[in-house]
């Protein structure tokens, strides 16, 4: 729809401007606050104009808080999450598209269903499982009555216990189970010529060789797109890291930022320092997008090259 009426142009510009204000306003406030001193905030309230204290505030983030180590946690979580998701999605999509599997359609539907079940919805169950990864096994043994038999034979029922709470693995694993990547790769594979797999077989390349020599190089942009998306989502995760990690040294940067607010009422939070922290924590994903945005767009439009 391309209209060229002047009134329409003006209306569109106004809406655009309003949208920009909506997005840039808070960003401006963040930057302005981050560059003022705590005393300035106590005296004047909200900072409407920038000051010269940014580097001071930033330095305090590094000396007075655990944000640096928490950023390392975030980096580890986001990076491992992105890598694990990429590999898992690629392999599952490869199986679904290129092999005749009896229940491939059902499997794919189940994988897609995980998109409708983000961690936020299943957080309680996920927490239960994370606090003891063997709890499903235990429950199964109880329900099937096997534990009764074992108790009779050995004197005690089986109760396995292993908690992954407060570990990096526990932070990452529940987030990996997400179908978006499989969907992305599946759609990409479907745009490739159908006979490619057969051609490779005729050339003597088996399924593994085909995957490494042909499918993997062709999927580069999809990989990059999925990597960036998952990395960003891993970096900005809040709820799961909040419940799954209990010590400050295990928490991620986003959780750590929220924890910078004082626990007691009546105290004015050190907003300049918190905002400086927010800016620093945002730098990593920003850098990521800046470096890989070309692939991000290419991978998401799923065009055949």
């Amino acid at each position, binding site marked *: 729809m391309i209209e060229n009426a002047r009134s329409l142009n003006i209306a569109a510009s106004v809406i655009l401007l309003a949208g920009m204000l909506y997005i840039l306003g808070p960003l401006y406030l963040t930057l302005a606050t981050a560059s003022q001193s705590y005393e300035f905030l106590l005296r004047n309230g909200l900072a409407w104009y920038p000051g010269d204290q940014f580097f001071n505030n930033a330095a305090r983030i590094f000396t007075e808080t655990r944000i640096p180590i928490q950023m390392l946690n975030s980096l580890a979580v986001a990076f491992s999450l992105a890598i694990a998701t990429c590999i898992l999605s690629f392999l599952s999509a490869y199986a679904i598209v290129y092999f005749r599997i009896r229940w491939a359609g059902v499997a794919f539907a189940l994988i897609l269903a995980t998109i409708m079940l983000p961690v936020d919805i299943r957080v309680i169950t996920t927490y239960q499982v994370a606090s003891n990864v063997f709890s499903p096994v235990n429950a199964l043994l109880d329900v099937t009555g096997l534990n009764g038999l074992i108790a009779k034979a050995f004197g005690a029922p089986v109760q396995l216990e292993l908690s992954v709470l407060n570990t990096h693995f526990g932070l990452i694993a529940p987030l990996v189970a997400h179908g978006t990547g499989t969907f992305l790769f599946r759609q990409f594979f479907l745009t490739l010529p159908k006979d490619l797999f057969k051609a490779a077989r*005729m050339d003597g390349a088996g399924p593994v060789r085909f995957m490494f020599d042909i499918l993997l*190089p062709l999927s580069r942009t999809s990989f990059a797109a999925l990597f960036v998306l998952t990395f960003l989502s891993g970096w900005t995760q809040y709820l799961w890291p909040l419940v799954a990690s209990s010590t400050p040294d295990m928490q991620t940067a986003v959780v750590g930022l929220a924890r910078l607010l004082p626990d007691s009422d009546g105290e004015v939070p050190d907003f300049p320092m918190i905002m400086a922290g927010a800016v620093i924590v945002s730098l990593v994903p920003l850098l990521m997008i800046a470096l890989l945005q070309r692939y991000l767009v290419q991978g998401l439009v799923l065009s055949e090259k």
Partner: protein
Amino acid sequence: MNAIDTAIRAAAASITVKDLTKAYDPQTVVIPPMDVELKAGEFTVVLGPSGCGKSTLLQMIAGLERVSSGKILIGTREVQDLEPKHRGCAMVFQNYALYPHMTVFENMAYSLKVSGAPKAERAERVAAVARMLGLADYLHRKPGQLSGGQRQRVAIGRAIVREPAVLLFDEPLSNLDAQLRHDMRVELADLHRRIGATTVFVTHDQVEAMTLADRILILNKGRIEQFDTPKAIYHNPASVFVAKFIGAPPMNILAVTGDGAALRLADGQVVANAPLTGAYQLGIRPEDIVVDGKANGHVVRAALRFREDLGSHSVLAADLGGSTVRIATPFGADIADRLELDLNFPTSRLHLFDAATGRAIPGAFGAQ
């Protein structure tokens, strides 16, 4: 003739298919038991309408589809249980299926690389094939930078660089435009004459079949309707199916009844003398019908419905006893405004088919 030609000619092997069947489940039988032998160095075109099992047959020879039962022999070796790479087949696909991220050179050398050929040998063999196919200047391009015909040639090059015992084509020309298809047809015929590889070429295009084939294998619902030279198939179709499938426009098929002395059309007109009784199907090629002229056969009267002038000739459609008959006449014949035509059916040009089975009844009108 250079080294690669000789090598391929030497590698060419026959294909023998014995009691081959393919069924996805007991209800969907794609190919009922089939027996056929393709000679070494022969260019066989497998022709049939879509869904007739021709691609399935090809993929079973290649090893991309499992056989349900029966044997496939390449040369004297049973191959039906072997992996594709151990069968000595190479294949050219309909959509080329070139590896988009590899250069032309890498595409052609890939199978050699997989089989572990040393680098120098790879380069040498690819260079020889590229020279033969006129691709020497394009070796460093990616498939995306090539035209349709060039991509086709790369796909062929990728197939023959391994010096296969059997070369398989799966409708390779159907993605090309008409002019290019014609050029590629000529190139393929020329290539086959030079390298002499045993070739199986699947298509639904009768022109490709007629022009390329040493012998044509016509499939209908997985069954072999006829396996013969293009000339024999055109002049002595073994069944109504073949008669209607080959030729443009196809052979006219008319329902006739024998009264012991003559064959009559539905409206009672006599088209031929023959001591036959019962129902038959009578076939005659559009170009064999003589309009108004003298020929050694019966004359029937038909109503002209319309005519198409094609430049080289005209095609008339006439109503004869309730069915439409197509007649190919020289262009511009003076029959423009007439409604009634006298059609002469030369007896020697008639084909008779069994009404129930559709199989040809040879020699029904004496020697043909």
